[in-house]
Structures are given as structure tokens and as C-alpha cells.
């Protein structure tokens, strides 16, 4: 067998089909000028499934087995088995975008439920059914600000501590329009509200803040940021994540017009940055017209039963082309499905408990590290969520490398700062970790 293992044709079938078409060979069907025909090789040998699996697995095995205490926007929470098994059902994972709603009610309903969960968690009226990741969702929020008639100005203000990946993507998303990105200062990890107030004016299109911040601190007084943006006809976009939303101040109640962030903290776990971009916004008419991404709406079928369908599609690229609200087509629907399953599996109690644990674990772990000679933690005199920054007397890079040799991964975020993230997936390794830190910081 020298063909594709996933093409079912027998030789006689192929012959019969060629006859029906009226050609001698498959090659005769290719209408490619001789001058651009490729007659070389890629040099990739076909393999049995077992051999292909072994080839990839043996490569993967070159990844060291480390216990990660890593976060900064990409988080690892325990994903229940039920999520894997249900999401892997072929009717979900092998399906396409729901352009034929009559045979896609299942996925549509699941996405509608996902949207609804975000509506509850954010307090905003509308959530789309996914962006690629937190960074691209932030980029989309900025271009949304640019399109809204109720928003004036061209400056996008972001915290000076903004994650470099998010900042990089934002810079590219605004490059095609008139927007410019500027930073405002933070103080002790959080928004410096006075300094921000000096920078917000009528030329401001959007103010962006995060809660929790990239350094794990919990913001205080976000409502004043919301007011500030509102007073100057700017959009207030809040970055957060799906777990933090269950506990921290409801974005709508602090005046957020848009919520973006990471949803894959539930449903996916650590996946080398593979994520899920949350996107929710106000439901006023103008926002509804301008929101990027796919939306599932409720409707009725011909028998007046409740049914679901993609809706308001005229915003999207396949219809509005160069005037679309975004170029996004493929999104992260299947990750959204997983996230919704995980949220449902936790229930409100479980989700709030997980969020509370995230506060407790950060506090307790910081205290344990702070007790070590050569470490002060946390650096910021704030409440923390999941992670915190610690000051180390030794160079941070050296500490991180030494810890890696002991089997642990942490961030080196400054010359003498490491960042540590604790969840239920690494909590059981804390004793060993703290012991290792105490060894390497001396």
C-alpha cells in the first residue's frame, strides 16, 4: 500500500472511477502546466500508524519532565476526564462551523451555553464564541474601539507591565488603522490611577487594564478606571481569565465595556500557549453591529421548537469582506466547548472554590518562600491570584536554571525577580519546591 491510508479506494474502484470520468490515470486530471510541475521529493517516508506514533512520541520525550510553577497568562488547572471524553466525541471534534444549523444543533447549543456562561461571569450582555487567545482578543478590542462611533480618539493606553506577547499582537492589530499604543505606569503591580488620569483625555480611544495583573496582583479601584474612560468617551477593556471572573469584581460593575482574556485556563491546561480568547462586550445596538467573531443566537425551527443558529453574520468576512469587523474565520470553537464543559462540571460552587483556592495558594506559597533566607515574597503588597513575584538575592536567571536542574520551572521576570504560579496541579509538589528554592537561593 503506497497511498494515503485514509483514502479507501481499491484498485478496481479506482479503475472504475477513472473510466467513468473518461481518463486513463489520475495524473491526467491535473491541469498543471509542465513548467510548474514538481517532480522532486520531500524525502518523508510513509510510516505505519505505530511507527508514526513512535516517531512523534520519541521526539516529545525530549521534553524534560519538570514540575511547572508557571503562569503569566497561560495556566494549568486540572481538567476532569469527562471533558476529554465528551469533547473528543467525533460529532463535535470533526464537525465544521455551523453553517447548516439543522444538522449542527448540538454544537450551536453548546456554544450558546458558553456565551451565556460568559454573560454571567462578566455581567456584560454579549459574548462571542471565541477568539484565538487573550492577545488577539485584546487586539480585536482595540479595533472595535476604533469602529465605535461613540468612542473618540486614537490612543490605546495599556499598563507598562503588559505581557510582551499581548503587547506585540496589539501593536500588529492596530497597525492597519489610526490607533497608537501607549503605556501608563503601574504602582506596586497595580494601575497607577493618578498617573492614568493624567494620560486619559479626548484623544483616548481605549483604556486597558487587567485583573488579575500579569504579576498576579488583584486590582483595587477599577471602577475609577471605568469612570475615567467613560468621562472621555473611551472604551474600557478589562483583561482577565475564566477562573478569576468567578471571584473578582464583576467587570460590568466596574464599568468595563469589553472583557477579553484567557479561557483555556479551564478545559485545556498547559498547552504551550495554545489558548482560547474570551471576548464579551456591552449589548447596545452599536456594539452588536461591531462585535468581532461568531455569535450564536436562539431562534425557532419550522415546528416552532427552540433552535440555534449563527447570527448577525453580515459583520463577518465571508459576507462583508473588506468592511468586516474582523478577518477571523476559524476560531477556537472546540476549546470553547471544552471550557464550557469544564465550567459546567465545576458548577458555581466548584468554580468559586477554585478561585478562592487560587488566592489562598498564592498567599500561602508566598509566605513559605518569604520565610526563606534570600527570598522576599510577595514583592507587591497586594492581594494575589494564583501567582506572585518574589525577590531573590541571587540573579533570577541563575535561580531559575538551578531550580530547573532540581526539576522545577519558574519565571525569571527581572534581574532579581522570579514569578511563581500555584494551582491544584502542582500544589502537591510544593514541599519539594520550597525545599529546592531554599537550596538554590543561598
Amino acid at each position, binding site marked *: 500500500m503506497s497511498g494515503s491510508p485514509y483514502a479507501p479506494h481499491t484498485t478496481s474502484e479506482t479503475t472504475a472511477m477513472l473510466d467513468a470520468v473518461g481518463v486513463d490515470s489520475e495524473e491526467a486530471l491535473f491541469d498543471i502546466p509542465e513548467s510548474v510541475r514538481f517532480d522532486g521529493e520531500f524525502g518523508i517516508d510513509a510510516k505505519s500508524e505505530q511507527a508514526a506514533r513512535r516517531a512523534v512520541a520519541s521526539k516529545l520525550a525530549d521534553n524534560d519532565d519538570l514540575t511547572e510553577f508557571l503562569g503569566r497568562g497561560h495556566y494549568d488547572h486540572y481538567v476532569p476526564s469527562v471533558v476529554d471524553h465528551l469533547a473528543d466525541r467525533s460529532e463535535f471534534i470533526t464537525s465544521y462551523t455551523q453553517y447548516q444549523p439543522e444538522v449542527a444543533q448540538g454544537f450551536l447549543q453548546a456554544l450558546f451555553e458558553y456565551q451565556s456562561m460568559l454573560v454571567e461571569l462578566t455581567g456584560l450582555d454579549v459574548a462571542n464564541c471565541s477568539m484565538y487567545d487573550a492577545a488577539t482578543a485584546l487586539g480585536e478590542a482595540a479595533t472595535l474601539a476604533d469602529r465605535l462611533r461613540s468612542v473618540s480618539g486614537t490612543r490605546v493606553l495599556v499598563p507598562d507591565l503588559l505581557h510582551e506577547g499581548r503587547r506585540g499582537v496589539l501593536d500588529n492589530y492596530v497597525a492597519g488603522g489610526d490607533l497608537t499604543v501607549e503605556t501608563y505606569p503601574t504602582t506596586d503591580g497595580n494601575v497607577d490611577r493618578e498617573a492614568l488620569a493624567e494620560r486619559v483625555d479626548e484623544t483616548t480611544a481605549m483604556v486597558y487594564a487587567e485583573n488579575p495583573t500579569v504579576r498576579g496582583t488583584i486590582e483595587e479601584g477599577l471602577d475609577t478606571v471605568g469612570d475615567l474612560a467613560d468621562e472621555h468617551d473611551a472604551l474600557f477593556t478589562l483583561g482577565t481569565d475564566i477562573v478569576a471572573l468567578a471571584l473578582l469584581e464583576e467587570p460590568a460593575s466596574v464599568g468595563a465595556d469589553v472583557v477579553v482574556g484567557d479561557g483555556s485556563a479551564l478545559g485545556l491546561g498547559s498547552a504551550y500557549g495554545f489558548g482560547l480568547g474570551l471576548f464579551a462586550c456591552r449589548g447596545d*445596538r452599536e456594539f452588536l*453591529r461591531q462585535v468581532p467573531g461568531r455569535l450564536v443566537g436562539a431562534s425557532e425551527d419550522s415546528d416552532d421548537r427552540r433552535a440555534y443558529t449563527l447570527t448577525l*453574520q*453580515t459583520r463577518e468576512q465571508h*459576507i*462583508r469582506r473588506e*468592511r468586516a469587523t474582523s478577518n477571523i474565520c476559524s476560531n477556537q470553537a472546540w476549546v470553547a466547548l471544552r471550557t464550557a464543559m469544564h465550567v459546567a462540571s465545576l458548577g458555581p460552587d466548584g468554580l468559586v472554590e477554585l478561585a478562592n483556592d487560587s488566592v489562598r495558594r498564592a498567599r500561602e506559597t508566598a509566605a513559605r518562600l518569604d520565610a526563606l533566607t534570600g527570598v522576599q515574597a510577595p514583592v507587591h503588597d497586594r492581594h494575589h491570584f494564583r501567582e506572585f513575584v518574589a525577590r531573590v538575592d541571587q540573579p533570577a536567571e541563575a535561580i531559575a536554571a538551578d531550580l530547573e536542574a532540581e526539576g522545577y520551572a519558574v519565571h525569571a521576570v527581572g534581574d532579581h525577580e522570579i514569578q511563581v504560579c500555584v494551582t491544584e496541579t502542582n500544589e502537591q509538589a510544593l514541599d519539594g519546591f520550597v525545599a529546592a528554592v531554599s537550596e538554590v537561593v543561598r
Partner: protein
Amino acid sequence: MSFDIDTDCRYLESHEWVRPDGDTARIGITDFAQDELGDVVFVELPSEGDDVTKAEEFGVVESIKAVSDLYAPVSGAVVAVNERLFDEPELVNDDPFGDGWMLEVAYEESDLDGLLTAEEYRDQTE
């Protein structure tokens, strides 16, 4: 199929009608246009006080799967907008020359020059 055509109106080839009435004129889209579009789900219009310019875009009308620009048959300031369309876009389908009107504009009579007559518009659509 035959479509309603209002003999009191003048037309653009792009299927907008204008019906002069004293100093102002109403603007909408034709029966033919609404039928081509299918079920209208959204109409985007300028605000009162905005200016529209003859032969230029003044808004957008959308069905489920299509978006069409609206062109102004005449120039002038918008004196009234049919805000009912925001909640009942189906009026464009149900009554394109009546309740489905879109704008009322303070226009110049000379702007009517060059627009199609009802007769000429009928010829175009047949």
C-alpha cells in the same frame, strides 16, 4: 413577476426611490430591491441633521446573507429618519414605498434631474 412601482417617485438605477413633497423628499428602496434582498434584518441610517449627497452612500441595508449600500437620489440635510425600521426592519419588505421609507431630506428640486422616471425604472427592472 411584477413589482410595485410608485408613479409619484423618481428612481436611481441602484433601486432607491425619492418622493418629493414640498420642500422635503422621502427616500426608500423599491419593491424590486426588497425582493432581491430577501428578508431585511437591519437598516443603518444617518442621523437627523446629517447631510446626504446625491449618488453617494448614505446607509446600509442587510438581509441574512447580504449587505447592500444605500445611495442617495438627492442631496440635502436629513430632517427625519424612520426610526421604526430599527426595531421593525421588516417594514422595508412589507411596505417599501410606505411605512418602509428611510429618510426625509430637505432637497433641491434640480437634484431630480437625471433620475429615472417610474416608466424608465420599470423598463430597467423588466
